[in-house]
């Protein structure tokens, strides 16, 4: 018997990186496509949930990508989105999201705060998901071409990695046939920013300044460090035949655990 009856994908309003126009968030669209495919294969019900302005142009793009219907919690910018979403998601068996938003604070914290609020496990950086009995098997992304398999108990939140292999299919027919349904606001929470961090934004982008330790060197020391180049260079092996030299390389690789034999 299948225990997943409801899959909910959380989508956010994206932003075109150059023009700044509202559009679908690519990462959330990947999550939605994976959710739709899974719902189809295990015949579960798929919901798409958004918290924000129901008139946002970005939402119609999710309809074009196959959402069918989008439920929108109409909230203003200063409402705590986690509280609103948490009350809507109490009955979901599986919640999918992207990894990082393209608007707002985009701190990538939402899945974590939501998992903590609802009290269910969370797996991030998912590339692919598979249903196994009462668990979900997730293929996780790790850097350096590494991939990891983990399982997580249901209900759970899975955050999809931006490199997840899902192909988005845009259809105008679906865009005009889909519906955006505005939900009633559960309550108005007054808490503002996540975790009390008060951000002040600056519209002009400049290069970040690196943190450096203050140095009180003498002028002579500063000149010396400026004119003398650091000839770093490691060990140089000149002697021995090729077999011995190969052993030196092998020894180095072993010493730094770059090989496991």
């Amino acid at each position, binding site marked *: 018997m299948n225990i997943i009856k409801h899959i909910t994908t959380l989508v956010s309003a994206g932003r075109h990186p150059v023009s700044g126009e509202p559009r679908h968030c690519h990462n959330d669209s990947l999550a939605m496509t994976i959710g739709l495919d899974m719902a189809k294969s295990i015949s579960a019900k798929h919901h798409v949930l958004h918290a924000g302005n129901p008139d946002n142009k970005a939402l119609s793009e999710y309809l074009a990508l196959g959402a069918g219907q989008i439920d929108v919690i109409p909230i203003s910018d200063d409402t705590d989105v986690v509280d609103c979403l948490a009350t809507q998601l109490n009955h979901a068996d599986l919640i999918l999201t992207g990894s990082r938003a393209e608007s707002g604070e985009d701190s990538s914290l939402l899945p974590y705060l939501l998992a903590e609020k609802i009290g269910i496990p969370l797996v991030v950086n998912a590339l692919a998901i598979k249903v196994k009995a009462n668990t979900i098997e997730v293929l996780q992304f790790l850097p350096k071409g590494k991939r990891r398999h*983990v399982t997580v108990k249901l209900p759970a939140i899975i955050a999809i990695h931006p490199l997840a292999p899902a192909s988005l299919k845009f259809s105008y027919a679906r865009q005009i046939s889909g519906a955006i349904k505005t939900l009633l606001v559960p309550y108005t929470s007054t808490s503002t920013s996540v975790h009390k961090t008060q951000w002040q934004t600056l519209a002009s*982008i400049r290069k970040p300044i690196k943190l450096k330790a203050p140095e009180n*060197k003498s002028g002579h020391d500063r000149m010396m460090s400026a004119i003398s180049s650091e000839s770093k260079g490691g060990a140089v092996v000149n002697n021995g035949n090729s077999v011995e030299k190969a052993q030196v390389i092998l020894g180095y690789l072993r010493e730094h655990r770059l090989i496991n034999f």
Partner: protein
Amino acid sequence: MSTSKAKRINPNRILNTTQNGIKRITLSAPEVAENIPEVKPLRTPTKPKNFYLTVTHADRGMLDDHAHQVIASAAILADKETTVVALVLGELREDIASLGADKVIVMPEFDYQVFQPDAELACVLKVIDSLQPSRIFMPDNMIGDGELGRRLIATQPSKSAATHVIEIDAKHVASYQAGGSLLAFADLPEIILLAANTAETNLPFVASAIPDEQLKSTSYTFKESNSDYKNLGMLPVASATIALEEADFIVSAGNGVSNVATLETLARSLDAAIGASRVAVDDGKFPRDKQIGASGKTVSASAYLAIGISGAVQHLQGIKDCRHVIAINRDNSAPIVKRADLTVIGDAEEIMQSLILAIAEAKQATSNQTMSNPVN
């Protein structure tokens, strides 16, 4: 053209320090600079009133540059009464005193390749509980620290936090928001997830880096048997199929490699990806997408084996993020020698052949060992 008989004197003659500590240029003396190692002052406070905690994952006993920057930034921001405690998850075999860590707690059971977020979080919470650090610094990376940091932020709603921090100083942090269109500033929060390259690791002081066994034993956590997560292990991925930018081990060929087949055999036996310098690609020995350097790809492998590559600036630019560079070259004055951590001078073909044999023997020996001790 007449040649002058006058002896040419190096205008940049090296100073020799006399026994009295006076620096002199002695024309008759041989040009050897005495390498006096620079003694940096110790920063570690004796009576700490305050703690800064850094939490980082180690990979194969080493912390990466990103983790180094996080520990260094905590040490730079720490005042005279603040002790920097470095919590290292995973085995650690390098000395982090030069990065300003006053105390070190190593938890070898939390290797980054094993997925155990609840046990790691419990361990960090125990350390926080016993230390009560005023600030926590973590790298915002993909090897588990970014994830662990966010789980920590979610469990600590009373603490202020900032993620994706691209700029930090004593007063404030900054990060890009709204898809990178805004630069946002906030006061220095309690939990800071630093992006890469936000701090210099070259410090004018050292710290004691004492292992704290007491804290280690109190923060030991048993693995929960009823965990919601289960680690099923890593998916074996052949290095040859990975994009060069993502590869962890690269065998790279230059003009000194005459036989490409030998190089391919070597790469296969090391399970490494193949790269090439511009000359080798221009010669048609390798496809263009294998080119590493300024006009090719920039790689960040843990191990980079440069065979027959002299190391032009453009090539070195492409390998600047590589951790261990090993060079095989015939010319011991080639620029790659200055960059490489180990240089072997000799004929590339001969050394490659010997290396292939040595690797085969080593693999055979390892498999024999595991056959005789099946428990391990």
